Structures are given as structure tokens and as C-alpha cells.
């Protein structure tokens, strides 16, 4: 299938890439930049959430609970309050996000095994709120378990089924709430869709913009040979970038790669068909590189926001959830996250793989049909 004409195009393309520092920087440095930006700056982890405490119990037991919260590092107990009005004004002024209210009978109820504490959360910042909520539950739960075990050891009675503090939260795969785990597989998806669409669209449009297409047209190269020769270098680059991110993500951010590397490569290849197809499609509509960029952006921006990269799909209104079904990145994100973090096998991501194949074939097919080796 790969004849010498295609090899000539590929070699030419690589020489041009190597001589164009802007493309090189885009290809090599961009992934690292995004990795660190999203791994650190855009982290959804929230630490040192300012917290107020209304300890109505004032007992060793209540102080032990506060120590457990302090030790978790997620909260900073900055205020001690004595009334509802006190903490209300603190929340309103933004000085605290969370209030922990410990009732007067906390120590007695704890002995009975039916203690309750009240967490009041400022929900205006959703990411802080959700982190605070889940962390508070987790802290409460682990503290309750600790007490149960201590008490069982003390009394010699078997561990009671019901914990003295009733919290029902369960965290899988990422017990430290480390958002880099979640982000880094996403960055792979973002790089594969952003850089490849932009580069493929501009590399073809550049031939038109600089007039070299006219000379290419009059050679006996067939359209599909031209398309393949132009796209393959970017497939290779895309895989280089994928491994770049996986390696840095694994070494620096300690993101696990639990699934099969073969499956990661295969599914990434499938997803690349969609990205390259979108780039190719944009190139058939644009006459200048700027036009190509803008066209590609029109695909890429909704795809980033509606794919579940930044915002969870479940939190979107039903209409947008429906729109997201038409976005290939959505399926790829599920696949790559599941493969890296959960280590699932083929069966668990079957339906997403089928979706990626369909999108890849349809988009690539439509773009290839539109691509004409002519000027009009």
C-alpha cells in the first residue's frame, strides 16, 4: 500500500516540520506545557479550605474529631463560633467555606453509636464545595471506623455493624482525590484532538496558500496518496506526543497505567481517525491557514467543553448531554481514563470503541470524498 510516492511526501513533510521551529515547538513543548498547567494549576483539588467550628460539646471526644479534620489537611480551622448568626456572616463574607457543628450531646451519642455532626457548606464554588463535602464525609467515616476499632479492642466485644458516626461515602481508584489522575488521560485526548486537527488542516491549506498545490496537482500523485502522505507524519507525531504525555504523567505525576498498552495504542489510533478527518475536512473548506485554524476551533472548542474533559457529563443539562453524544472525544476520554486508571479490559469499553470506529470511518470518509486534487 505504501508506495514510493507516498514515502516521498512523508519525507518531504518531515523535512519541512524539522525546519519549522514553530511547528516543532507546538508538537514537542505544547503537550508538556498543557500537562503541567492542567496537572497543577487547573487542579480541582482544594486544600486548606477555611472552616469554622461550633463545638457545643467541648469534650475530649469532640476535640478528637476536630484533630481528625485538621490532620486531613483539607481544612483549616480558622474560627471558633458560638451561634448560627456568627457562622452565617462568616460564610456570607467569604471568610469560611465550611462550618462544622458539633451538638452538645455528641459524646453521649457517640457512646450510644448514634452521633451526628452537621456540615454546612458554601456551595457557590462547586469544585470547592464538592471536595469539601466528600472530604468531610471521608474524614468522618475514617474517624468513625477508628473509634469502632478502638472500642472493640477496649471492650473485647466484636465490631458492631453500625459505625458510631453515620457517613456513606465511597471513593474508588483515587483515594487521595488527586486530580492529576483524572486530568492526564484527558490531556492525551485534548492533544490528540487539538494539535492533530490544527496541524493536518494547516499543512494541507499551506500548500494551497503558498501555491505549491498547483505543482502537486499536475504530478501523477493520486488524491488518496497525497492525503495519506500528508497525514501519516502527523499520525507518527501524535503517537510520539501520546507517549510523551504518558511517560511524563507516569514518572512525574505518578499516574498509573493499569490497562494494556496495546489497547491504548489501538484506541488512540481509532480516535486519531476522527481528529485527522476533522483536520482534513477543515482543509477542504479553508483557503488560508487562519481560516483553517478557525474552522478547526469551531470543532474543537465544543468538543473540549462537552466531552467531559472539564465538566462532568452528568452535571450537564440533558440537551447538552445529547449533543455530547456527537463528540468523538467523549468516547475516547472514557476509554483512555478507564484504560489508564482502572485497568479495564476490552469488554468494559466495547461500546465506546464501536463509537470511535463509526466516527472515524464516517468523518474520514466524508473528508476524503470532499478532498479534490483540483483548484476549483
Amino acid at each position, binding site marked *: 500500500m505504501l508506495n514510493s510516492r507516498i514515502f516521498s511526501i512523508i519525507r518531504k513533510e518531515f523535512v519541512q516540520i524539522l525546519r519549522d521551529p514553530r511547528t516543532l515547538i507546538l508538537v514537542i513543548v505544547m503537550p508538556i506545557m498543557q500537562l503541567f498547567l492542567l496537572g497543577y494549576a487547573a487542579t480541582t483539588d482544594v486544600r486548606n479550605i477555611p472552616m469554622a467550628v461550633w463545638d457545643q460539646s467541648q469534650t475530649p471526644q469532640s476535640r478528637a474529631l476536630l484533630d481528625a479534620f485538621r490532620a486531613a489537611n483539607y481544612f483549616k480551622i480558622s474560627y471558633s463560633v458560638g451561634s448560627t448568626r456568627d457562622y452565617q456572616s462568616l460564610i456570607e463574607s467569604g471568610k469560611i467555606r465550611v462550618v462544622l457543628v458539633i451538638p452538645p450531646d455528641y459524646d453521649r451519642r457517640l457512646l450510644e453509636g448514634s452521633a451526628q455532626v452537621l456540615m454546612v457548606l458554601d456551595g457557590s464554588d462547586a469544585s470547592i464545595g464538592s471536595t469539601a463535602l466528600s472530604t468531610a464525609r471521608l474524614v468522618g467515616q475514617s474517624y468513625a471506623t477508628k473509634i469502632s476499632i478502638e472500642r472493640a479492642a477496649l471492650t473485647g466485644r466484636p465490631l458492631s455493624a453500625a459505625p458510631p458516626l453515620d457517613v456513606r461515602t465511597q471513593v474508588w481508584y483515587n483515594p487521595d482525590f488527586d486530580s492529576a489522575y483524572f486530568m492526564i488521560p484527558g490531556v492525551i485526548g485534548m492533544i490528540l484532538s487539538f494539535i492533530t486537527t490544527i496541524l493536518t488542516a494547516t499543512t494541507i491549506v499551506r500548500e494551497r496558500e503558498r*501555491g505549491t498545490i498547483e*505543482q502537486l496537482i499536475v504530478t501523477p*500523485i493520486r488524491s488518496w496518496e497525497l492525503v495519506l502522505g500528508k497525514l501519516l507524519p502527523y499520525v507518527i507525531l501524535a503517537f510520539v506526543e501520546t507517549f510523551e504525555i504518558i511517560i511524563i504523567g507516569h514518572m512525574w505525576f505518578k499516574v498509573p497505567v493499569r490497562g494494556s498498552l496495546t489497547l491504548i495504542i489501538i484506541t488512540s489510533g481509532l480516535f486519531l481517525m476522527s481528529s485527522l478527518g476533522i483536520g482534513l475536512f477543515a482543509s477542504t473548506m479553508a483557503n488560508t491557514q487562519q481560516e483553517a485554524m478557525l474552522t478547526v476551533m469551531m470543532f474543537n472548542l465544543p468538543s473540549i467543553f462537552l466531552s467531559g474533559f472539564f465538566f462532568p457529563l452528568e452535571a450537564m443539562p440533558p440537551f447538552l448531554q445529547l449533543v455530547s453524544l456527537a463528540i468523538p472525544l467523549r468516547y475516547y476520554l472514557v476509554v483512555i481514563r478507564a484504560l489508564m486508571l482502572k485497568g479495564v479490559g476490552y469488554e468494559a469499553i466495547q461500546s465506546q470503541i464501536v463509537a470511535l470506529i463509526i466516527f472515524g470511518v464516517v468523518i474520514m470518509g466524508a473528508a476524503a470524498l470532499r478532498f479534490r486534487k483540483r483548484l476549483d
Partner: protein
Amino acid sequence: MSDYLVQAIGLRKSFGAVHAVNGVDFNIPAGEIYGLVGSDGAGKTTTMRLLVGALLPDSGEAAVCGFDVRKQIEQVRSQIGYLSQRFSMYEDLTVLENIRFFAEVRGLSSKEWLPRSLDILEFVGLANFKDRRAGQLSGGMKQKLGLASALVTRPRVLLLDEPTTGVDPVTRQDFWQLLIKLVSPPTQLPPSSGKMGGEQEGGRVSVLISTPYMDEAARCNRIGFMRHGQIIAEGAPSELRAILNERILELRGDPMPLLRRVARQDQDVEDVRAFGDRLHLRVGEKKAGDVLSRLPSAIRSEQGRVDDLRAVPPVLEDVFISLAESEND
């Protein structure tokens, strides 16, 4: 298969309401340099693009080396070398890399392309610049690179779209010397460039060249004057000049504005153009004698001076202007 290397019959191409090529016919035999001459927008570039398959014709037929440009475009492309009006080599590749790329995608093996490329670079005078990036070449060198790249597969037909526009006069001379060498029979070629000419089996090369320059048109074996998408006159330069035999008068004198005004007032003078320090008057058929006898006295009666007034052989530019105007009527 006909004896013509390039044939066009009733070729038409419109862009919206603009009839860029509106029924073009011509035949180019082997060994001929055929010039398409016309002003900007006459349809020269579109005609070229139709012949190389960069555009699809709306109607009409065209064949290159006997291959139909609609149905056998890949065979057509294997026979031609095309130099587009706009520089269309990769500026970020070197001279040799450009030639190599276009040679390889046109089917030359790695064994063939290098010796040939070096020969051709020698032929066009770029041998010393083979490792320079194309973007850093001068305008004339860029055109030579384009020509070299077009020649590397030894095409039977060379299509050159305004190859010398924006090129200095000396380089234009060089360029034409190269073209004339290309189409001449192999025996006349110097041994060093023997591979460039008619060594091709089946005979000599044809060149279709478009140009806005009259001095270049005069060098072609035959020319077709294009206007509004049609060829309005065709023939050897001498045949075309013969159209205006005995109808061009050259006038020298002083002051020029007066000469011009008085000449225009004469009923048999169709057109007045300045050619340097003299005027060319085009007169009606068989009116040269009348104008020669009465114009000097008319000028003198207005206090003008006539140094010289006589019939001269027409140049192509006279013919072109005359043809362009007759179409407007």
C-alpha cells in the same frame, strides 16, 4: 493519434458569470513554441490550468500527447512539465530537495533523479545553488528552478504560464535561450546538455508559453492572441504583422502634444500611440498615401514641426492593440 502534441477544441470554462475561457481552439505540433499572448484576465492562465487538469472544463475537448485531459489525466500529467505563474516550489526546501521531491512523485527512481537533476541544474545555471533554500533565491532563479523541476522527467510538452513576469531582462534572455535549446533538434545541442532535448523517443518537445510581453511573443513560432477568453488571431509573428502592412506610419517632430492632437483629428487615422520619442499612427486600409500627403501640412499650419513621417513595418504591439480595439467595437 494525431501529430499534434497539444490540441484544444472549443474549450470553455466559466467562474460564475465570468467566461474565463470561452471557446478556445489550437493545435501545437512537436518542436513548436506556441505563445498565448494577451492582457491580464484574457484567459491565458485558465487555459493552461484546463490543459494540466487543475481545472475541469465546462465543455470542449483537449488532448495532450493524444491523451484526453478529462479521462486520462494521469497519463497527461506523466507527459507534461508545468510551470505555474506563481512560484510553486517549497520555499523551505533546498533547490535539490525540491527537484528530488517532484521527480520522485512523478515516478523517477532514486537512481535516476540525481544525475539528471545535476545535469538540469547545470543546464539552467543553478548548479552552484543546489543546496540553497528555494525561498532565498532571486525571482529569476526561482523561475529557473521551476523550469528545472518541470524538465526533470523529460516531458514531451512544457506548459509555462508567464514564466518571465517579474524577471530581469538578462535572466529573461537566458530563459529564452534555454527554451530554444529545448525545442531544437538534438544535433544542434551542445553535448553537455544533450539529455535535455529531443532524445525522448517519439521526437521533439512542444512548449506552450503565455506572456504579456511582445518581445517574447515575437520569439515564438506561432502565437495566439487571447482576449475575453477567446483566441482572436493566430499565426506566426510575421503573418500577424502582415495584417497591418502599409498601415503604420511613424511620425517624429515637435511639440508632441500638438502632433498627437492634429494626428487624431485626421479622419483616416484610427489610433495614435507614443513609442519612445515618436508616434505610431494606425491608418485605415489603403489610406496611408492620403495621410502621408496631407498630415505634414496640417501640422505646419498649427505651427508644429515635422521631422519625419513615413510608413514603417508594423510591430506585434501595433497588431495587438489593433486587434484588442476591433474586439471592443
